[in-house]
């Protein structure tokens, strides 16, 4: 639908000066001849002054014919002309397809005319175009104001919301525009008229299509509404074509591709086409809209398929589907069920989760039984143990300090305590100087051999024996110390 391009191309074929013809587009079908000049025309020679150069639609035969038919059909009211014929052959169906295309064309045309009016009126009131955006409203306001400089004499009630009227009046009092010359004013007024006529024609066409929608596709219009159904059908290119489209694509029919370079896409709603205008979609809360759209597309595709095969002329399938959709959306909006406190688990029913690993082992070593305690727990056979209070009273010493061992105290093997604790212990026990433990005594009293002399240096070398390396030992002492 590149009507704009078409109009530019058409301009190439004709001379710039064309008179403004007076025309009507209602019931009288007037054929306007287009002056087609064989000669080339420069684009620069495009005379922007003339409305006809940019707006051609209303003169085309196609437009006039269709409008004519629509008028007739609307006058005839609802008619049951089609009697079970194949949908495509029905002349009314063809008319509807044409109407769809025409409505899109009309929309484009209105945009073109709006640009035209705006350019012309810019000399008079430049700020108006930023205050009033809608093309039809703009045309109405321009027509009302005309060439008037003082806006208090102009009554804009009913054309615009009162807040905007106020803003417009204030802006008009300080505007930098000048009154227009007469011919420009007249052209602008005619352009406004034309825009308003096109708008009313479009309304007529849409009304007609909507009224017929109930016949063509009752189920589809029961779900999405006749206007949207008509648009969908128009874009798809027919009811059977619409039925062939998968639901995911139906969702995107009429999608406006707005790739506003540089503008944020955070607020733009994705992936909704004409379905955005349906009543169901508008009434769902924004959070659920995407899901609702998908649901709508799916069900409306089903309805379109039913319609294309004329499976249910009464439209009850459509109504049932609509009810289903409504119920589903309501269900989504339900609050979740209230949480009830959980009952306690049965005692001792769940086995305790035992942990393992290096960390646990290291922790357990701190409370493990030391060798000293092990020795104290055991006794030698036939050898009475010593006790702390003597004579069997007090705590028994077991094999600690028994004969045959050189020491009263068991030397500590390389403990697995953490280095920090070991260092602390080492400092306390050994002191800062000296290679030997300060607690060892040279004498050991044993019951069998009497006094035993211990070699205090004996266990100092213990660490050097065997496979134990003294390099990384935590309590390792110096292996050779010079006595001074």
């Amino acid at each position: 639908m590149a009507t704009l391009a078409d109009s530019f191309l058409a301009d190439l074929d004709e001379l710039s000066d064309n008179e403004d013809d007076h025309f009507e587009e209602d019931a009288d079908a007037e054929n306007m001849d287009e002056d087609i000049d064989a000669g080339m025309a420069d684009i620069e020679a495009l005379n922007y002054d003339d409305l006809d150069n940019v707006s051609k639609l209303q003169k085309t035969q196609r437009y006039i014919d269709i409008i004519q038919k629509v008028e007739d059909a609307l006058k005839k009211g609802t008619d049951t002309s089609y009697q079970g014929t194949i949908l495509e052959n029905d002349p009314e169906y063809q008319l509807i397809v044409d109407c769809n295309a025409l409505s899109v064309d009309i929309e484009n045309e209105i945009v073109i005319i709006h640009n035209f009016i705006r350019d012309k009126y810019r000399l008079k009131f430049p700020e108006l175009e930023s205050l009033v955006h809608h093309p039809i409203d703009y045309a109405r306001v321009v027509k009302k104001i005309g060439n008037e400089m003082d806006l208090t004499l102009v009554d804009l009630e009913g054309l615009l919301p009162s807040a905007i009227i106020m803003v417009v009046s204030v802006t008009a009092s300080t505007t930098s525009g000048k009154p227009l010359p007469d011919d420009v004013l007249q052209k602008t007024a005619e352009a406004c008229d034309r825009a308003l006529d096109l708008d009313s024609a479009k309304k007529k066409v849409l009304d007609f299509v909507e009224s017929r929608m109930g016949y063509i596709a009752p189920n589809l219009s029961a779900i999405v509404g006749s206007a949207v159904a008509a648009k969908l059908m128009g874009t798809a290119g027919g009811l059977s074509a619409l039925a062939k489209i998968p639901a995911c694509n139906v969702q995107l029919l009429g999608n406006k591709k707005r790739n506003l370079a540089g503008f944020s896409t955070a607020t733009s709603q994705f992936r909704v086409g004409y379905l955005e205008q349906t009543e169901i979609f508008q009434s769902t809360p924004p959070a659920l809209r995407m899901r609702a759209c998908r649901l709508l597309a799916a069900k409306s595709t089903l309805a379109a398929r039913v319609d294309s095969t004329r499976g249910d002329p009464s439209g009850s399938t459509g109504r049932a589907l609509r009810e289903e959709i409504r119920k589903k959306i309501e269900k989504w909006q339900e609050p979740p069920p209230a949480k009830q406190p959980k009952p306690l688990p049965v005692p001792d029913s769940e086995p305790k989760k035992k942990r393992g690993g290096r960390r646990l082992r290291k922790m357990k070593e701190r409370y493990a039984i030391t060798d000293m305690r092990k020795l104290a727990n055991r006794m030698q056979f036939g050898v009475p143990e010593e006790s702390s209070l003597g004579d069997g009273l007090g705590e028994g010493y077991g094999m600690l300090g028994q004969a045959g061992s050189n020491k009263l105290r068991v030397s500590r093997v390389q403990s697995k305590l953490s280095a920090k604790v070991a260092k602390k212990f080492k400092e306390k026990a050994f002191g800062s100087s000296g290679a030997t433990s300060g607690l060892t005594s040279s004498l050991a009293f044993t019951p069998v051999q009497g006094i035993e002399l211990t070699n205090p240096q004996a266990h100092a070398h213990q660490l050097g024996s065997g496979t134990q390396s003294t390099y990384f030992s935590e309590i390792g002492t110096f292996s050779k110390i010079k006595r001074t």
Partner: protein
Amino acid sequence: MSCVLKTLTTKKEIDTVIRDTIDKVVVLRFGRATDSVCLQLDDILAKSAREISKFGAVALVDIDAEDIQVYVKYFDITLIPSTVFFFNAHHMKMDSGTADHTKWVGAFHRKQDFIDVVEAIFRGAMKGKLIVNCPLPPERIPKYQLLYKDV
């Protein structure tokens, strides 16, 4: 009476409850709805009924009903409220430092106390004991004087 807990009025109902609850502690509260201590106890029972529902079942018995007098005599219920515990149709006793081990007399100070007591009974019962020790410290156990016949 709490609306959440079942109230038993006939001997048959009590029998069914005790017999049919398997592997769960049955808590039977003997008392009246008009007594304030009873109400306190009922409140705690009602709140914790759901929490112990996996290993305990709670029911209330009205001692004013005629059918129930048999049980009142059997358990020797003189002070209300009295709570009796059962597990798999066995009567569970608990030593809480008071004179009477067969029942619990009075209300509980806290909901957690009650849950602790039920858990102790459950553990003991699962091990096969018929009398368990009370896990509560003595200050949380309501004290009472037993009346003897010839005092």
